[in-house]
């Protein structure tokens, strides 16, 4: 039962353009969502997060949008840079009432930013 889904295994974007990575979830109890970036031979690194009480969170070139009614979130990277090329994982957690570090991850999207 895949509770967090990333339906696009890969995405290719030109440098300077916008990258949009999508994520869907099925469990309405999730109340906190995160994006992690992973380079080869490295562990995932935290990128940006959003609470379910918000619909947008921005950090520099990265913006995460949350649509609770659709159980959908997206990560926008503007402008995209070659160094952004990595696997991006969407993750979700039931933060309140759960109080654990049990992140539920999606399967990841490989982003390739072409120079």
């Amino acid at each position, binding site marked *: 039962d895949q509770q*967090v889904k*990333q339906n696009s295994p890969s995405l290719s974007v030109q440098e300077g353009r916008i990258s949009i990575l999508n994520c869907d979830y099925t469990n309405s109890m999730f109340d*906190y969502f*995160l994006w*992690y970036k992973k380079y080869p*031979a*490295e*562990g*995932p*690194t*935290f990128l940006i*997060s959003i609470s379910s009480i918000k619909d947008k969170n921005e950090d520099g070139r990265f913006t995460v949008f949350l649509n609770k009614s659709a159980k959908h979130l997206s990560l926008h990277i503007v402008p995209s840079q070659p160094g952004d090329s990595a696997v991006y*994982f969407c*993750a979700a*957690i039931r*933060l309140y009432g*759960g*109080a*654990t*570090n*049990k*992140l*539920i*991850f*999606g*399967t*990841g999207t490989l982003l390739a930013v072409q120079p």
Partner: protein
Amino acid sequence: DAGVTQSPTHLIKTRGQQVTLRCSPKSGHDTVSWYQQALGQGPQFIFQYYEEEERQRGNFPDRFSGHQFPNYSSELNVNALLLGDSALYLCASSLGQGFSNTGELFFGEGSRLTVL
């Protein structure tokens, strides 16, 4: 400031053997979680250790066990290895059992286990 360190980085075992993976959390962190990332999949939660006790467990059989030491470091043990246990095993550390509002878990680079 040392981040999360894991050892070994790579290892090869045969079916039926046992393996121990090790993790030292980021300085100042006291909670360790273990994740399994199979090829083409996202990381899956195995269990979490806090105050030397297993606090949460994912959907993994009893062949997977762990331990946390007084210095907060942790071990993951897998007995009776199966081919399907081949994966990247990630250790993540954080401060406190509860999830911080910053949402950050700090991951190590992982131990890649191959079972033949």
